[in-house]
């Protein structure tokens, strides 16, 4: 039982990060139909920039905020310089552009920062809390709690503020949103900024546990994408459930089956979902217009 709980907690912790990456995917996908493969790069920038700024003597909370600002700036630049000029391109073209952006950002990060692994001090010490025989790091609670706060904030933002409603309107129907006077290009840019901020926050929260390096983004993006797909593309609840599910599957797979193939589980999950349930758990079936 202790073992089971241990796997469950570590699965939920990684799963929360996948869920946040998937949520970022979903925001951008809903607003602009772009599948942003550079989503994992925001997570990397969040962790790496915090490390770099904090090492200059800046207090950790300030460094974290500065890192989020950096990530938002990168997100806005990505939208302005790479996505906006290619408006109207087909899905695959846009995917290739974001893959290019991801490779570019990763390589740039190896020059701006360095190629070493880095970590941050845990926010509230590293004495594990024992629960039912399983040890939980306080930082895991930070990740789970932080994830929940982000989700609630995002929900309030989307459903209670005018700006958030503009994002939802653009997601529902871009042309109709334009007709009622919403600046859709601005809204899409905003969705890039918000999802960059979410990614960076996830990166900061998880860095004390998993460490960070210039190239951690690729695998995170792919797994976050798997999570979004398992949950059903475009569904925020699906993204969260999918993220936690992938995290749990990975933890139990690594614990009970084989840790060599831990990373394979997310991809097997993608293939299984696509073959048997192409719209995911919470997705809607799409119809091609002729």
């Amino acid at each position, binding site marked *: 039982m202790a073992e089971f709980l241990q796997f469950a907690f570590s699965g939920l912790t990684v799963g929360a990060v996948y869920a946040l990456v998937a949520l970022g995917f979903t925001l951008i996908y809903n607003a602009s139909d772009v*599948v942003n493969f550079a989503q994992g790069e925001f997570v990397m920038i969040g962790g790496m920039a915090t490390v770099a700024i904090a090492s200059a003597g800046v207090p950790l909370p300030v460094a974290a905020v500065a890192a989020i600002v950096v990530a938002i700036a990168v997100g806005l630049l990505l939208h302005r310089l790479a996505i906006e000029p290619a408006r109207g391109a087909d899905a695959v*073209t846009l995917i290739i*552009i974001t893959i290019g952006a991801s490779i*570019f950002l990763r390589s740039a990060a190896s020059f701006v920062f360095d190629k070493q692994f880095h970590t941050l001090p845990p926010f509230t010490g590293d004495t594990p809390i024992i629960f039912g025989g399983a040890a939980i790091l306080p930082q895991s609670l930070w990740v789970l709690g932080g994830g929940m706060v982000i989700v609630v904030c995002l929900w309030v933002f989307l459903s209670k503020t005018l700006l958030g409603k503009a994002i939802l309107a653009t997601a529902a129907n871009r042309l109709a949103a334009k007709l009622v006077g919403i600046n859709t290009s601005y809204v899409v840019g905003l969705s890039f900024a918000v999802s960059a901020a979410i990614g960076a926050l996830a990166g900061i929260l998880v860095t004390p546990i998993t460490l960070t390096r210039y190239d951690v983004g690729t695998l995170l993006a792919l797994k976050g994408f798997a999570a979004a797909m398992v949950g059903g593309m475009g569904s925020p609840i699906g993204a969260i459930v999918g993220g936690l599910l992938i995290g749990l599957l990975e933890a139990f797979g690594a614990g009970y089956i084989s840790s060599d193939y831990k*990373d*394979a589980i997310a*991809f097997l999950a993608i293939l299984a979902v696509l073959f048997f349930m192409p719209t995911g758990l919470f997705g809607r079936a799409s119809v*091609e217009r002729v």
Partner: protein
Amino acid sequence: MARIFSHPLAVPALIAAIVLACGFGLGSNFYLRVATLVWISALAAIGLNLLMGFAGQVSLGHAGFFGIGAYATAVAPNVFGISPLLALVLGLVAAAVIALLVGRPILKLKGHYLAVATLGFGILVAMVLSNESGLTGGPDGMTVARPVLFGVKIKGVDNWYWISGAVLVLGAWLALNLVNSPTGRALRALHDSEVAARVAGIDVARYKVIAFIVSAVYTALAGGMLALFNGFITPDVAGFMHSIEFVVMVVLGGMGSIFGSVVGAAILIALPQALSAFQEYEHLALGFILMVFMIFLRKGIVPSLVALIARGAK
């Protein structure tokens, strides 16, 4: 000019001329080696182009097939004691069978779903290759036995230059034949509109799988040749970045242009060698090229040039 270019034998002849010119023109072994790598990559790019440029189905996991071809060639001689050349043929069969099994369900998907499914497939292959270290030597790679034909060992850059060049010309010729056959027309029809193709009586699922298998075999052949030429391979040949490099070759040269794939491969292989002082920036440049081309020159180099010449002729 445009009419000469549209003759079915023009492109293979052009490629053959370039292979011959480089073969006699490039003096040093270093350049011949780079050129050999270009011909091998171009073969894989032509294969992927048949799928992406003609059938309109994206694959972000084609390096998986490259890895299957390469590792079949490397592993089978150790396990079954067969000749590396026979092992290469076995690799092609394996790639075709796997493409058939995977292609059926995967090709039902469209757009980004297809992109992600193929990506997952490629990564799974790479993971198997680096985890099954008993057979494959793991992440460090393994050596490949030299093939022997009629009692003569096939090795050395000059031999492999002409072999890979000849295979490339043959591959380009076969690809063009396929494109100009009823199958090729069916593929282009489903590229333009799947619904329209189905209405016109084309068995869409079947033709997509055919294109997938053919492109998998091309790519696996390239992988097998690389294994034999290098004498050493690592699981990186099946990795995600390698898949992306193939996509860049196709996109850069021009989707739907066989000669474009050769140009794309040449740029992607030769450029890092020419700029070896800037090797650190290779991925930075790769990412940048990918973005710029997809934004500003979406048709690729060769189709854009051909359009320019055609406009000039009028």
